[in-house]
């Protein structure tokens, strides 16, 4: 064999290896989903969705967990949405290139890299202890809001950046002020992108357990929360709790709850991908 034959052979070999590596990820994903569905699907029924948690695995349900999850999602949106979008608008439209804006930028990318459990430590000290919110939904939502704030800010900026200069110039030419231009032109034009960012951020928040465990969300809450100051649990915490019990039946419960959690996560991500695709097709400035 000549050198070039050997090289060609190596090239082919790497190609096969590349396909193999790419497939490993997908195969593991497949096994994983298959295993969860096999184990959990038989446990999902109306009772499972509408029962309170219980010491007996066969009677335990996830009512409090998914109601808590929805509460957390709504509260987190209410807190993080205006905050993140305003910060994004400020950084993209108002801030001048100076030391402060530079620092803000570095700081936000740093915040995005802070482990979620550290946000839990922040939450328990500031919201639970100093602000005396207790182990409440509100404390949890505030903690998660800070956690997802960097994602919302970054995607808001990207969305606003995509609005062309001419739209703004047109608005200014008609005599609109800066804020009128942003409110009436820039924000509506970039709304799809901003929404994508919010939904992605929420899908991140819905799967978080660590910071909520640190601020003291409980696995066993025998009632569904009725106000933001009530104690709560969420699906990931319920799953963690069931996973850490030795009995086989609780593992089945965990698998069933995982199916529900994955449905919510994939649904949110699917909506975000759909919005992004639609946005990319629609925009022809």
């Amino acid at each position, binding site marked *: 064999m000549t050198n070039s034959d050997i090289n060609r052979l190596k090239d082919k070999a790497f190609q096969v290896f590349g396909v193999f590596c790419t497939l490993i990820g997908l195969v593991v994903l497949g096994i994983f989903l298959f295993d969860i569905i096999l184990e959990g699907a038989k446990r999902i029924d109306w009772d499972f969705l509408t029962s309170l948690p219980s010491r007996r695995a066969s009677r335990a349900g996830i009512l409090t967990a998914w109601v808590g999850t929805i509460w957390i999602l709504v509260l987190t949106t209410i807190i993080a949405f205006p905050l993140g979008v305003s910060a994004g608008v400020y950084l993209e439209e108002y801030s001048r290139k100076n030391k402060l804006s530079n620092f803000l930028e570095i700081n936000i990318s740093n915040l995005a*890299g802070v482990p979620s459990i550290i946000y839990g430590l922040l939450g328990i000290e500031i919201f639970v202890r100093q602000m005396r919110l207790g182990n409440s939904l509100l404390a949890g939502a505030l903690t998660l809001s800070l956690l997802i704030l960097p994602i919302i800010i970054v995607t808001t900026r990207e969305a606003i950046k995509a609005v062309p200069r001419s739209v703004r110039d047109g608005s200014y030419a008609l005599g609109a002020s800066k804020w009128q231009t942003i409110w009436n032109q820039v924000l509506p034009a970039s709304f799809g992108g901003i929404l994508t960012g919010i939904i992605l951020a929420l899908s991140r928040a819905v799967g978080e357990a660590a910071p909520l465990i640190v601020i003291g969300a409980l696995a066993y809450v025998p009632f569904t929360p009725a106000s933001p100051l009530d104690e709560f649990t969420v699906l990931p915490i319920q799953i963690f709790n069931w996973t850490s019990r030795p009995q086989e039946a609780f593992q089945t419960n965990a698998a069933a709850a995982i199916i529900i959690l994955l449905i919510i996560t994939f649904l949110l991500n699917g909506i975000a991908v759909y919005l992004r695709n639609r946005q990319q097709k629609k925009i022809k400035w």
Partner: protein
Amino acid sequence: MRASEKIIEGLLWLSAVITILITIGIIWVLLSEAIDFFQVVSLVEFLTAKQWTPLFAQKEFGILPLVAGTLLTTGIAIAVALPLGLTIAIYLNEYAHARMKQVVKPMLEVLATIPTVVYGFFALTVVTPFLQTLIPKLAGFNALSAGMVMGIMIIPMISSLSEDAISAVPRSLREAAYGMGSTRLQTAFGVMVPAASSGIVVSVILAISRAVGETMIVAIAAGQQPRLTLNPLVPIETITTYIVQVSLGDVPQGSLEYKTIFAAGITLFIFTFALNNLSFWIKKKYQEKYD
């Protein structure tokens, strides 16, 4: 009119500045509690003692076992994710058809969206029993399966960011390599990977940082036994798991045991902060090489 514009601008400015307050808040919370802790336990003991037993009667406060556990699971995760992620990035860039790339990439991204508590369940109930059939000595809780599953989770992070870096290399370099008669493999490893190396390094550092801070996978599958070992077959404890363990227990707030989670937290924060800034610095320094 003008006044209300100013007020709005002020409010927007305030929301941007809140992000700085969050950072100050994190550092203040960690520092103030940790300083209390270090008034009782010396920093030297914290950094050099080889036992971590704050919850036992015989208290020892050496962070090393938790650091060792964290580095062990992180090391395993990177050992899984780096070769796989980099090969996927090269394959998708140099070999795969555009159509295939379009299908495979979003499917791989799904790996990153799965909640980590779900990965933990997977590590404990599928991967560990499977590995036990191959390695009979493997304990029920161990660093190996937690690390491997964490590696699967961060594959898309490395493959995606490395792929961006490789596709940012100018076409002319690739064409020059082909012009010299190189195969795709020689082009990839001789030209593209070295040219994109800063971007690849950034992706790996970010993946390490992510693995160091990852909590639920290790809390579920790696165990809660702090020990100074590099043996992946036995239960260990990471910094993050320890924080979860104390948060779930009934350690009275304000006690020395309670303050240990802030000392552990600041250790974790310093690790990830250093890694994130390192990646930021590399990105800034080498970014404009080809512009």
